[in-house]
């Protein structure tokens, strides 16, 4: 029923890193908690929010106790101060324009010990909103209430968890519930949102006015979402961090129906960490026109009727989505449900030390990378949402899975965080991608890859191969071209999906990698970046999509007044 609109709470989906200053970490491995806390208090000086958090932290740690419930062994406060501007235009006119400024607190109180604690169900934390100014009493009041709730919830969760564990026979060497980590003190400058909102509103309106030149296009919208998020973290271990991150994203959307009713659309987006990297107005217009031209071309494009099995070349803007969904999600070391024996969840749960990619490929996630070939990466951060320093992690080496990305929830054989515990504002942290870089020991130029496709289809006596420029939802191709063996010319087609594009295909059928890595900045719980070149699959099935064709509009769009 609703026309596309951004939800008011969508700010919760944005968070990322622009830390330019190296972390001043506590260097010695295990300072006593008291001295760590003293250092934290010293570092908090002058920041009213951090000071209020520490006062309540101290008070709660010292005094929270109900008979027959243990006192907390760990308390953590994370505050995300979000300053968010969002605007959307449709058909040349502004439709949404909003500013959100909110501070979200998440409190985690753990009772028990590192080995087994209350982090379960409601014991995973409480969320609250905090005052926008630094009035100490008003701030502390909300922190106090949320802590009280979190402690009581932890007490109940601990009992529930122990009851649940009784269903399973005891594991001889279960992994701990919570990984120990050295305290980190890193107070970075805060960031704020400084954008020319009026000018961006105008740009969005102007670029969506292009619909007037494209009678075949049904819908044209454009949106901008700019965020500055300051993250504050304090814990009873003595960790105290503050860092600020900005993200700027602009998205264009166009949709149309083919004469047969098939829905066609494109939604190119830009996401950067530095506003000056957003496209200039002229570039944005050129890109918008290209988007509209391709949607118009798609309307005329032939439908993929015949099943095809052969080489398919993915451009970087399509390959990144494949890597994100087939590899990126599976290298996260997520602890399985209580009682489940697997190392982690997902298809790579049992793939440790097994080959998951061709042996010429490697994957590293390096959140400390701030930019790549001059382009900002939004997945960069210095300290993760659990107060652990970011680390480069080689997850796949020469095709073999050698590690997982981990937060402070250990999994079998991987007992420490490697600085990948990240969270969206107000939500619990989990292992997440930072800056995932796809590497290959052998790379080829785009033209060479294309030639290889042509040679392969010639050899296989096929009239054409395929290349994909960009993907839509569910890894279905948005822009798919046939490359003809005869003369190398290309033809845009529509209505196709890939069959069995899965971890087996990427392990066994990926035969070559391009030399054209693209920085793909991605929104989500915690923003991440994938740096990925073109990928050539030696064999992949392309078949007709099994989607219904919607009816065309029952009457024509309104004629233009202006």
């Amino acid at each position, binding site marked *: 029923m609703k026309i596309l609109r951004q939800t008011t709470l969508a700010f919760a989906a944005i968070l990322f890193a622009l830390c330019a200053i190296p972390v001043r970490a506590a260097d010695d491995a295990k300072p006593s908690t008291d001295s760590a806390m003293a250092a934290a208090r010293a570092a908090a000086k002058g920041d009213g929010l951090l000071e209020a958090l520490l006062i309540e932290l101290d008070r709660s740690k010292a005094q929270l106790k109900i008979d*027959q419930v243990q006192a907390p062994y760990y308390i953590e406060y994370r505050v995300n101060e979000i300053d968010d501007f969002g605007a959307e235009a449709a058909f040349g006119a502004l439709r949404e324009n909003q500013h959100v400024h909110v501070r979200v607190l998440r409190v985690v109180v753990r009772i028990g010990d590192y080995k087994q604690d209350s982090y379960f169900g409601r014991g995973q934390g409480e969320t609250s909103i905090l005052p926008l100014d630094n009035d100490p009493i008003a701030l502390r009041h909300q922190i106090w209430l949320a802590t009280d709730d979190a402690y009581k919830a932890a007490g*109940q969760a601990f009992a529930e968890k122990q009851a649940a564990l009784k269903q399973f026979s005891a594991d001889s060497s279960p992994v701990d519930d919570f990984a120990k980590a050295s305290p980190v003190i890193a107070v970075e400058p805060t960031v704020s949102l400084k954008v020319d909102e009026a000018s961006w509103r105008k740009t969005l309106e102007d670029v969506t006015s292009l619909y007037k030149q494209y009678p075949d296009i*049904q819908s044209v919208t454009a949106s901008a979402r700019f965020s500055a998020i300051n993250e504050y973290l304090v814990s009873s271990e003595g960790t105290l961090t503050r860092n600020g991150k900005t993200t700027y994203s602009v998205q264009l959307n166009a949709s149309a129906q083919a004469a047969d009713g098939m829905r066609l659309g494109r939604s190119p987006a830009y996401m950067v960490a530095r506003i000056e990297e957003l496209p200039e107005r002229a570039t944005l217009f050129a890109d918008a026109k290209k988007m509209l031209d391709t949607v118009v071309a798609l309307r005329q494009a032939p439908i993929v009727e015949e099943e095809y099995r052969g080489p398919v070349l993915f451009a970087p803007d399509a390959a990144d989505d494949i890597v994100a969904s087939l590899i990126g999600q599976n290298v996260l070391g997520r602890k399985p449900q209580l009682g489940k024996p697997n190392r982690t969840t997902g298809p790579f749960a049992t793939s440790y030390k097994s080959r998951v990619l061709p042996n010429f490929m490697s994957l590293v996630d390096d959140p400390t990378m701030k930019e790549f070939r001059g382009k900002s990466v939004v997945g960069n951060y210095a300290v993760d949402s659990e107060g652990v320093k970011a680390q480069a992690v080689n997850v796949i080496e020469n095709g073999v899975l050698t590690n997982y990305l981990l937060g402070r929830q250990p999994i079998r054989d991987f007992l420490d965080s490697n600085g990948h515990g990240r969270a969206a504002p107000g939500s619990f942290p989990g292992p997440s991608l930072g800056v995932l870089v796809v590497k290959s020991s052998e790379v080829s130029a785009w033209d060479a890859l294309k030639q290889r496709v042509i040679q392969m289809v010639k050899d296989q006596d096929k009239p054409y191969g395929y290349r994909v420029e960009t993907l839509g939802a569910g890894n279905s191709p948005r822009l798919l071209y046939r490359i003809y063996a005869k003369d190398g010319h290309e033809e845009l087609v529509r209505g196709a999906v890939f069959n069995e594009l899965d971890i087996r295909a990427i392990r066994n059928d990926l035969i070559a990698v391009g030399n054209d890595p693209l920085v793909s900045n991605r929104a989500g719980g915690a923003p991440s970046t994938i740096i990925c070149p073109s990928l050539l699959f030696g064999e992949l099935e392309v078949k007709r999509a099994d989607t219904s064709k919607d009816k065309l509009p029952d009457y024509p769009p309104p004629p233009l007044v202006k």
Partner: protein
Amino acid sequence: MTISESSPTRGSLCTRVTEFLRVTACCALAVQLAAAPAALAANDKAAPLPSVPSPVSDPVLKAMQTELARATTDLGKTEQAPYFLSYTVYDQDFVILVGSYGSLLNNVSAQRRQADVTMRVGTPELDNTHGQSRPSGVSSGTLPLGNDQDAIARVLWELTDREYKRAVPSLLNVRTNTAVRAEEEDKSPDFSKEKPQTHVGELAAAPPLDRAAWEGEIKRLSAAFRKYPEVYLATVILQVQNSKSRMVSSEGSAITSPSTSARLVMEAQTRAEDGMDLLRVETFQAPAASGLPSESDLSAKIEKMATDLSALRKAPIAEPYDGPALLSGRAAAVFFHEVLGHRLEGHRQRDEEEGQTFTKKVGQEVLPKFLSIIDDPTIHEMAGMKLAGAYDFDNEGSPSRRVEVIQDGVLKNFLMSRMPVKNFSNSNGHGRNQPGLMPTGRQGNLIVTSSQTVPEAQLRQKLIDEAKKQGKPYGLYFDDIQGGFTLTTRSLPQAFQVLPVIVYKVYADGRPDELVRGVDIVGTPLAALTRILTTGDQQHVFNGVCGAESGQVPVAAVAPAMLFSEMEVQKRAHEHERPPLLPPPGFEDSGATKSAQSKSEVKP
């Protein structure tokens, strides 16, 4: 079918997540307040001639009319032409400030423009909105904010086409269902015929909101709660809204209704040692923020709220009871809203899932003879208070009207939208909805009047007399309530509940009144209504937000205090979480809440 002064949840705001949601719900509330084309000075009558619309200067209205005409013509050529099409565009421009303990938790301003496209295919006798298919009558979306007619028309077209593609299959379903199912008892048509209306509402521009001054005031007011360590949840919320709704229909209606409103809600909560959450809410309403009570008046209210909560914390829990009861005017108003008002909503008289308590009682006595009830959205103010349920046109474009529902105890009429019921074939201007939903008959300002009154001051003595007469040790006095709800369907018992917050035992033997807590008034409608003995001589107003099938709409209920020969109360369900363990910030040394540690039990 709930009514409340503030946010819909009561009590169990024990988790902070809820608190977070509650604040976001406030945003929703502000949006909802514009649902009804609300308060404006109704100084002109609707023009009777729709066929000659006056020249339109409002570009938005013009775009709506042009696009509506085009859609009507173009879709008129299709196989299944709509017989009715309307566009309603809601402009909402609002500011929300939420203060707590001296700081702002939320400071939001936003502009929205939403369009509802309502379409009916088939015939007025049987159309796509019949029975359970009612939601198929409307599609909604966000419209561009400015005056760009091309953009507005384009989005309206998208919505209209989408709605058409919903309405047509729905009609097919309706026809099949009607053929397959047993004949319905009430064979009324689905849509009444009404005279089209044109109206351009004028409204003196509200004085601009002095936002900085209000930010200061909200902070100061909320800081007043700092003095009370037991009041551990407190918010002061200001919602100021300028709205404009525009409606055009294929019948020729064109109505513009601007409105402004300012609403201040103060909520304070504590928790008794047994875990019962205790809540006090005060709300104030005015056309503009400048019309809200002065800061000193509000501060005085805060003192009162805190004192009440402190007394309530210590008050004993009342036992289930059936005996004489005195309801204050506000309590009686909510009682009538729930027990009677919802059951007189027109659509409930034909829906075969409904209990239809009063459907066949027209012309019969349903109340004591000395009581009469009207629902009159044309009244804007009463007993010195602005009425929240006032509007000039309902959401179907029918002019609001005073409806005498019960006269001298005899049921005369129902609250009608354009959905006819047996023997009531026309709207009486009570078709209301929140944006995005289909309208149904709803209450506006429900006003109970009485011809058998005693001065209010004497009611307490009357209660004592009645208790003595019945041989009861005490009667109950319900001083203030926070809201209520009722069930009207057949699948569940016909019941209502009113949620009192301040209740006293008034002893027959002359002991001082005793404050009690933890009771809800319960009962069944027909029994409860016949037990009213007498009423007070002054009208009291309850302004609230009422939720039902067609969404949240602002309403008022007005009634005098009432003495009941019998009223049943039950124990209130409540959480058992103990109060906060540590003293609140600022009271660290008081040791006030250390008592929690001395108790031993905790639930596993």
